[in-house]
């Protein structure tokens, strides 16, 4: 049993950090919250829709265009250029301005000059910036970030976090962030500690009403 008797609600526009030591089940929780996985027991809702009622395809459709991701290992596709990587989520839903929008977002993360570089031609920080641009390009309601600074040095990590919070604030997105970095967690509206499969309030935390995503009594 990785997660047990766990309840969490996240409000629209809120930023929530989940901290925990390695192996505490942070990624499992994130996977469940994002609907990438389904729990063996318990209830999950996203955008007011119960995930338990949906199969994998249904959950995917719910995510489409509304959820963004930033991963620890960037998850850029190696054969795609920076701009092509950013274009990917947009191309799944019908729209016209894919290229312009992607360029605009890459410019916003400071990579306007590196549009046509392949991931291996970019530094780690640059790759994560591409990933951040990709997470926000579809103007999602909700962004999940899984150890976004885990593979980066401290200075680069800090810049990525600044970028992440700035974009989050500017676009009014809900942010769920998984990290082992308490300093990073403190910058969120709310920080929760995942310990032994249970969620406990961490320092400087406040609760709010009208949730957009919640998980309750999750076991896995």
């Amino acid at each position, binding site marked *: 049993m990785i997660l047990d008797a766990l309840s969490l609600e996240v409000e629209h526009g809120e930023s929530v950090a989940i901290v925990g030591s390695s192996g505490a089940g942070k990624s499992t929780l994130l*996977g469940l919250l994002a609907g*990438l*996985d389904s729990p063996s027991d318990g209830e999950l809702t996203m955008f007011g829709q119960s995930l338990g009622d949906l199969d994998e395809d249904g959950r*995917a459709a719910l995510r489409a265009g509304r959820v963004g991701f930033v991963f620890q*290992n960037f998850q850029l596709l190696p*054969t795609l*250029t920076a701009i092509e990587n950013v274009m990917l989520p947009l*191309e799944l839903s019908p729209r016209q301005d894919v290229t312009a929008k992607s360029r605009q977002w890459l410019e916003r993360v400071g990579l306007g000059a590196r549009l046509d570089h392949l991931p291996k031609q970019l530094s780690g920080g640059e790759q994560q910036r591409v990933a951040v641009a990709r997470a926000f390009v579809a103007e999602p309601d909700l962004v999940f970030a899984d150890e976004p600074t885990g593979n980066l040095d401290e200075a680069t990590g800090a810049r990525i976090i600044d970028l992440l919070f700035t974009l989050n604030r500017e676009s009014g997105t809900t942010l769920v962030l998984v990290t082992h970095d308490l300093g990073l967690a403190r910058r969120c509206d709310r920080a929760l500690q995942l310990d032994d499969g249970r969620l406990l309030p961490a320092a400087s935390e406040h609760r709010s009403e009208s949730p957009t995503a919640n998980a309750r009594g999750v076991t896995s």
Partner: protein
Amino acid sequence: MKLIGLSLKGLRRDLRAADVRALFVALALAVAATTMIGFFLDRLDRGLTRQAGQLLGGDLVLEDGQPFDDELRRTLTEAGLALSDQVDMVSMVSLQDAFQPAGLKVVDDHYPLYGSVGVDLGQGVESLAHGPSAGHAWIAPRLARLLDAGIGDSVQVGTLSLEVTGLIDREPDQQAGFAGLTPRIMLNMADLDATGLVRPGSRLEYELLAKGAPAAVDSLQARLDALRRDGVQVRDVRVDRPSLGRSLERAQKYLSLAGLAAVLLAGVAVAMATRRYVDRHLDTAALLRCFGASQRQLGQLFAWQLAWLGIAASVVGALLGLVGQAGLLSLLTRFLPLQLPPPGGLPWLMGVLTALAVLVGFAGPTLLRLKRVSALKVLRRELDPVPAAGWVVVAAASLVFGALLWLYSRDLTLSIGILAGGLVALIVLMMVGRALLALLLRGIDRWPGSGTRQRAWQLGGRQLARRRQASLGQLLAFSITFAAMAIIAVVRGDLLSQWQAQMPPDTPNYFAINIQPQEREGVSALIRQAASNASPLSPMVPGRLTTIDGQPAREAVPEESRGDGALRRDLNLTWGGDLPAGNTVTAGTWFGANAKPFEDGALPISVEQALAARLGLSLGDEMTFTVGSDSVTGRITSLRHLDWESFQPNFFIIFPPGALDEFGHSYLTSFHLDDPDDPVLGEMVKRYPGISVINVDALLEQLRGILGQVTRAVEFVLGFVLLAGVSVLYAALTASRPARAHEGALLRVFGAGDSLLARMQWAEFALLGFASGLLGAALAEIAALGIYLWLGLEPTVHLAMWLVTPLAGALLVGLIGFLLSRGSRRQSPMASLRLLGET
């Protein structure tokens, strides 16, 4: 629509990846090979039909002993056919005191329907699209010699005197060979009546030649069948085309086989490249799932992507095939009619179909894995969907390959046989391969030695043996690859050497006919003096087949054979106790030197099998021939197969020794002379003026030329198959590169030096290549046995192949693998590991 656009975009981006390139190359090669061979065979086939039309004199030729009526002419003309009349007969031609039997060919103003006559009107040979005009005659040089006639002389034909105005160099409508042994004289239809040769009882052959579209001929089938029943010989160029000869037929089969080998190779390459493609796209698929794509969307997206790839590869491959067939044809133009019909559309279609079928069969099951990927993989890398079961992959590929086999060979039993045999071989191969890997691992552990070199071999061998599943897959793929390459190479070698054996340098190039019994000794002595490879003098007497089993021959044969030439012309009958060289008895027993007549007086006879089949004859049937004013009856005791390309005297009917001695007969022989100006020839003609000596060097040269050109075509195609094989190796090794690079990087982290790593990788690839080569040779040997029986070649054991294939395999796989992994060796271990983390 959205997905289609997205798939196109994805593909364009994907072109940077090695596996996509490998897929593209493999598919393009498969299409190129099949379209090249398809275009080539298609055009060759239509070209040969056209050439046959020329040899036959028209697309449709009717032949009868009496003139054709106007009603029939009208019917043919209304169907859209152009007509030309011709009359053939044998008659005496004389100039002063010289008399000579000659073959008269009386032509009308529409002659020839196809091609042109090569004739020397006094200023060298020129090509004319008409025959001689009224009052004129063109004669063969041989007749001119025998009569001592020249241009300007007047020869007597029947009661008519004609001026010789030309010497015939070649007739467009003369079958290759020497069917008409009497020398030719050609005259105009307007002069026929004046010769006085058309009398009741004279043996005239009326021919009605027609030229037109196949559809026009088809529309007349009912009428043509009625004519056949009335005893008219009806020849349709598409049906009665002279056979290509066994050499060309074998070449055709060989080319089809090579095309299929290329398809199989491409299939293996596609299967290998797809594994890597799918591995590489698992992350993409997981990400797209994350972004909200459904399983159906994913499946469609990747299916479209590969479909685009297949279509693009087909177009490129078909263009390559078009260029390739032009190359093949340019090798063959020397003996083909100059303008071949343009390439048809069918090979294009077959090419695209082949590419898509190969994709579906060899890539499909593996591709389905992408659909099943979980979005959670983006967080947990180890969450890969299970690969498709091996048997599903093999079954899908076999099904598609079997269907292609059927499509190309149009032979269901053959296709099922090959497929079943192939599957059994695959299972055996898998077991042997597994055993071989286990053996390798054990062998290495016992292998003493600690030098760098030994260590490299040990490491390489262990890597190979321990990566069981992956290595086994590659071992199988490479074994099939090497087997296909070896088969095509080995069959080519045997095909060529058997062609050469069929036409040794001392193949007879002269025939001497009309040798009288009293001249036998003298002529034999003369020939022995200068010539080599002389055949024994065969006696021959012309006889007309009149009855079969007591019934008039025309009524006894199958309806469609009532007009057969064998019923209306004399057959050359011979007799002797020894089975002639090059003949094989296919049914019954050879009567031998001491043959006795049957109790009822019938003589045992041997009949050529194709003639027997045409006339519906079998063992025990009785045939009666009219020879001069007598008749002789034989009962069939054996059927023979004989080789018409042997350049030996060949006979349809053979009687026992001495059986026809009392009839007026002459002798026939063939021999080889190196020098066309050998004085023996002059001596023979001078001493025995009645003998005709025919030089067949031109015909021999033509046949040798065909074989030479076909040989080059065969080698061209072999090169193509080898190229396809290399593309498989490239695709497979590309697919395994990341895993090996990862291992290499780890080993370097653990302290392996560059040179050790290089040696180790070389050792691993070379061992893999050697083992695959060995298994491939075994597979090829078994397959070759079946193929030889199919091609009609003598099966042999190929020792050289057993030696060359493993060594070539070690070298090829070693080299390609070594070069492909060079990149990963050059990077720092950190860089390699980091790079791998992303893929």
